[in-house]
């Protein structure tokens, strides 16, 4: 998936000289996860460069560059570090088009690795997507496989509005399904690891049915797509797993069609439960599908604690917790 993300930036920089890439350790070294490796050598230091450790500065400078007419794609080293830039994202990037009535726009992408499962503790594991889906003017994307990651990132870079691009870091190397005690199949040996060459896009705002099923709809994104798939396989419940891919704007049509078909719904995310994006999903499902539902909409999420270190796998909503929710929803 790292190669796919890198390829998306490479292709975009090659096609449009307005695309610039910067962030902490992003230039010479190519990023701590190596997502920008080789871009500085290929496109020069003024199009891919290291930034000072100042997230507000990185995003603030990107907003100014976008107002000028460039298309910056910046990296925040971990999603957990984005908060100093929150004012720039919420009060500025998201609002510039609206408040200037389109005189100035903000076509920036803010990439950041998200999610846990790497023993990163509370500063390298968070999933802050709901802090961004709450903000009008932003788009929020979470890819779950290399092909999507490349196509969505190219689409995000080409999008006329600011996009928060959350990369589940536990998926960088393969489709991790929550079984932390088992090896992960590398993307090179997985069908979704095959990535198209060159330029293509996966449109923002379109969900994908990851695993078709008839018994219950699971709404998931990022790492949880594979956790839900594993839970369905292991529980024997024929769940339809929807990979939302874009949280904002949400592909509500795909969600509603599936829930009306299965008449049951479980919402899964790694982020903390309270006011998480799952709350929005559950509310939408009951608004749109109430008279079709056979059971209450269930949520499986991270506990409302900071992301712990030693207890990482107690915290992580793994296949067993998802399977329990599937069973409970089927029995309701």
């Amino acid at each position, binding site marked *: 998936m790292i190669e796919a993300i890198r390829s998306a930036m490479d292709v975009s920089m090659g096609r449009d000289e307005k695309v*610039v890439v910067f962030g902490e350790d992003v230039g010479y070294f190519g990023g701590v996860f190596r997502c920008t490796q080789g871009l500085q050598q290929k496109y020069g230091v*003024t*199009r891919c460069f290291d*930034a*000072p450790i*100042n997230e*507000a*500065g990185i995003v*603030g*400078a*990107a*907003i*100014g*560059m976008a*107002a*000028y*007419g*460039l298309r910056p794609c910046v990296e925040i080293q971990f999603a957990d570090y984005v908060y*100093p830039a929150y*004012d*720039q994202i919420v*009060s*500025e990037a998201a*609002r*510039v*088009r*609206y*408040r*200037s*009535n*389109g*005189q*100035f*726009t903000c076509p920036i992408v803010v990439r950041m690795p998200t999610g846990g499962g790497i023993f990163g503790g509370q500063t390298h594991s968070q999933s802050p997507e709901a802090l961004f889906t709450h903000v*009008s*003017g932003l*788009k929020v994307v979470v890819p779950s496989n290399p092909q999507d990651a490349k196509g969505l990132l190219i689409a995000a870079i080409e999008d*006329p*509005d600011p996009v928060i691009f959350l990369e589940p870091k536990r998926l960088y190397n393969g489709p991790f399904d929550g079984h932390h005690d088992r090896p992960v199949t590398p993307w090179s040996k997985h069908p979704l690891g095959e990535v198209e060459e060159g330029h293509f896009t996966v449109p923002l*705002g379109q969900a994908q049915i990851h695993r078709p099923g008839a018994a219950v709809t699971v709404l998931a994104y990022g790492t949880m797509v594979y956790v839900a798939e594993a839970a369905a396989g292991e529980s024997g419940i024929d769940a339809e797993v929807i990979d939302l891919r874009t949280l*904002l*704007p*949400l592909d*509500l*049509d795909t969600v509603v069609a599936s829930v009306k078909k299965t008449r049951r719904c479980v919402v899964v995310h790694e982020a903390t439960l309270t006011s998480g994006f799952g709350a929005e999903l559950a509310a939408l499902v009951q608004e749109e599908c109430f008279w079709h539902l056979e059971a209450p909409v269930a949520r499986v999420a991270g506990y409302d604690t900071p992301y712990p270190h030693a207890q990482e796998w107690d915290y992580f909503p793994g296949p067993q917790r998802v399977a329990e929710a599937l069973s409970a929803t089927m029995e309701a």
Partner: protein
Amino acid sequence: MSEPEPLRLHVPEPEVRPGDEPDFSHVQIPKAGSVPRPEIDVDPREIRDLAYSIIRVLNRQGEAVGPWAGTLTEEELRDGLRHMMTLRAFDARMQNAQRQGKTSFYMQHMGEEAVSCAFRRALEPGDMNFPTYRQAGLLIAGGYPMVEMMNQIFSNEADPLKGRQLPIMYSSKEHGFFSISGNLATQFIQAVGWAMASAISRDTRIAAGWIGDGSTAESDFHAALVFASTYRAPVVLNIVNNQWAISTYQGIARGGSGTFAARGHGFGIPSLRVDGNDYLAVHAVAKWAVERARRNLGPTLIEHVTYRVGAHSSSDDPSAYRPKTESDAWPLGDPVIRLKNHLIRIGAWSDERHTQAEAEIMDGVVAAQREAEKHGTLHSGGKPSTRDMFEGVYATMPPHLRRQRQKAGV
């Protein structure tokens, strides 16, 4: 050795408060013409003293003196005077309109007119300002129609920003004026980013960032200086030190630093202080900094030393926190009167012409207001539609907003 005393927290206080005699004896004012003008490619280490002095051109006799004088022709100076007088008349009318309920809020410039009016004259078409809420002189001196400004203030049907923004939070790309945020300091680093983009693109245009003395305490100020310094961005970073951040005197943001300009030293950025009430000095220093930026010599930090004569905004009453007569005691005088006296001194103006110009300018402002009010004011006449509220959040309206708009019946 004896035991140390218990620790004490230092909370700075201004020299005077309401009821006290105004006292600006702590503001050291060098003689006009006394501060040298270095070459634009000077090593910043050689001009560190400029961050502790004040560059002044106009002396008490109204003469333009010293090495910073002579950047403007008589005609340009008369234009400058008209710009400042226009801004003052505009403010007077709009303050009044706010009191009459024609808008919700207003912020005026009294005493600070020279800063934005003179700075604008040093820029070229295509350069971009990232202003705060007290630089409307950039628009007035840049030829932006007053009617458009008033339409925005009245949030009427002709408001170029469709009623979405607080009054005076203008935006005009065409006039090099980035959309005002209202959140403080965010624009300072954006100005640096814009300038970096211009350099990345091998363009010739430069940016100017604006911030108040109080907001220099924000982290974004530090971000801007780090980025400007690291990438030698073609940007002029302006601090408008008008002594007061609402009720908080400038010492709270400045702390132990001698001046705000001196903040630039740690970043290796040439840093100058200028008499912000001296139109000629502001222009000369702006020109110096703009030329540095344009010639790839990197950023400049300018502290404009001025005084906010009026209230912070229409929601503020300064008599609650500073002596009522403090503005009369401000040692740098009034920018309009100083430029007027200079023009009279050099035989390019007269009291009669000034009185006549005042009347003409006020007529122009009143006519603009009449025109704007035809399109409505905040609570009466034409106003932006509810549909406008839903538009422009994104380039293309996403389905969830479309559903909400439909539900709202618009």
